[in-house]
């Protein structure tokens, strides 16, 4: 128990260790006494820190907590496969329900060894229900074009499972797979950064508030300005809409690129764009500004790129233009090389940068002011 004295700050030990040790020799050693000494040491450590040191310390604790949370919760991955299907959305829904029947999903779970951690705790019936309800999604992408997607924590199993589901769907009449299941990616990628960011901000705020109660008036002022700087830098960016980008790549297998360019010009003419914007309920100037179709790779491929405030809409519009380009160019053979992707992270705005700058300004201000603080008995001067 007497070794717990080592937990106290050095400056404190130099002054009190001898008499404290004499006291410990007199008291009954119980776990309650040990806890009291430990708690006293921690309080003394906090009091002995310069206030500015509490800020990075608490920020580090916040980040450590966030990292622990992130590590404890495995990444999720998603793979999707695109398919064309005759009939309306309801018909595709019925086909998907057949593919997602309990026996077929149970077979996939067993073969792909999915839900390893829950397998022994939850019944297979419940797992299939959960897989169907939470992890598999069938969504429209363009006219008669749909995506079937699956999410889980094992990237290779995710891709294989998506492929199994897609192949099962393609066995129905009128369903044609447009490509193999995409490699598994992390959706939405930014959530981990958000957790880390909030861990940092929370830790920083905790540090500043703890420092407020241990520091001097001048420090309070600096901390106040630090927080204000941080909030001013961060808050406005949370009112800016996310912008998502989706792109499709089309290969020009044969024919004249000039014929393809003619189709592109036609599709992107003001009159056509006005019509599309009306049909798809998009602001026309936005569509004109954010749709980019260009020939690249020395005339061998076409890139269709579209940016929107909604990720699914971004994918739908890019897929529609890609499909129209293929269908409207009779003088060239075009083949879809890479279907329009579903963006998982917005390309704009970059909120991390102003947040980091705000933090930097706040912390720097706090450090400079904190260093001017007078030394006290519990703090080494």
């Amino acid at each position: 128990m007497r070794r717990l004295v080592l937990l106290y700050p050095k400056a404190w030990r130099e002054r009190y260790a001898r008499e404290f040790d004499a006291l410990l020799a007199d008291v009954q050693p119980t776990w309650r006494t040990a806890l009291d000494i430990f708690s006293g040491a921690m309080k003394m450590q906090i009091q002995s820190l310069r206030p500015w040191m509490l800020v990075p310390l608490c920020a580090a604790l916040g980040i450590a907590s966030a990292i622990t949370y992130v590590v404890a919760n495995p990444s999720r991955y998603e793979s999707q496969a695109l398919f064309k299907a005759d009939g309306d959305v309801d018909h595709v829904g019925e086909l998907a329900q057949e593919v997602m029947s309990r026996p077929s999903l149970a077979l996939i779970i067993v073969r792909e060894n999915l839900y390893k951690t829950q397998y022994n705790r939850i019944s297979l019936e419940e797992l299939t229900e959960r897989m169907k309800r939470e992890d598999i999604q069938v969504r429209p992408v363009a006219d008669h074009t749909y995506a079937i997607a699956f999410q889980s924590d094992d990237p290779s199993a995710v891709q294989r499972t998506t492929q199994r589901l897609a192949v099962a769907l393609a066995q129905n009449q009128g369903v044609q797979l447009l490509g193999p299941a995409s490699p598994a990616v992390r959706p939405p990628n930014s959530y981990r950064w958000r957790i880390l960011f909030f861990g940092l901000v929370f830790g920083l705020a905790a540090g500043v508030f703890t420092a407020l109660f241990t520091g001097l008036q001048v420090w309070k002022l600096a901390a106040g300005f630090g927080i204000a700087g941080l909030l001013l830098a961060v808050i406005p960016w949370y009112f800016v809409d996310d912008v998502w980008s989706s792109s499709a790549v089309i290969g020009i297998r044969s024919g004249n690129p000039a014929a393809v360019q003619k189709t592109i010009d036609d599709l992107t003419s003001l009159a056509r764009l006005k019509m599309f914007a009306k049909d798809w309920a998009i602001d026309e100037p936005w569509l004109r500004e954010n749709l980019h179709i260009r020939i690249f790779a020395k005339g061998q491929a076409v890139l269709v790129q579209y940016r929107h405030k909604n990720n699914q809409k971004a994918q739908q519009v890019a897929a529609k233009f890609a499909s129209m380009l293929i269908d409207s160019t009779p003088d060239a053979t075009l083949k879809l090389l890479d279907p329009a992707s579903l963006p998982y992270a917005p390309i704009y705005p970059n909120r991390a940068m102003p947040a980091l700058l705000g933090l930097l300004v706040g912390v720097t201000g706090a450090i400079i002011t904190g260093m001017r603080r007078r030394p006290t008995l519990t703090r080494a001067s």
Partner: protein
Amino acid sequence: MTRNNDPALLVMASLAEGDKHGYAMMEDIAAFAGVKLGPGTLYGAITRLEENGWIAPVPSDDRRQPYTLTALGRRLLEKELEALQSVVKTALTRLRNA
């Protein structure tokens, strides 16, 4: 400043009787207030009181360091106890008249 339930007030109240070292303070506080202060809590209070100049160590050859109330500490304790006495008196009067 101390609060009525603060270990610092208990330490000062104990030293009001005369100089004492840590263990003697713990025993005294347990006897007159029924509060068992742990060593960590006691020395947290002693550190704070000494920093503020309300108590001071008394020169001693013993490893057990005795402390004494300073004049400033005595004045503060009197003020605190008067305030506490006023609260106790008012509360008791109100209880009796209720």
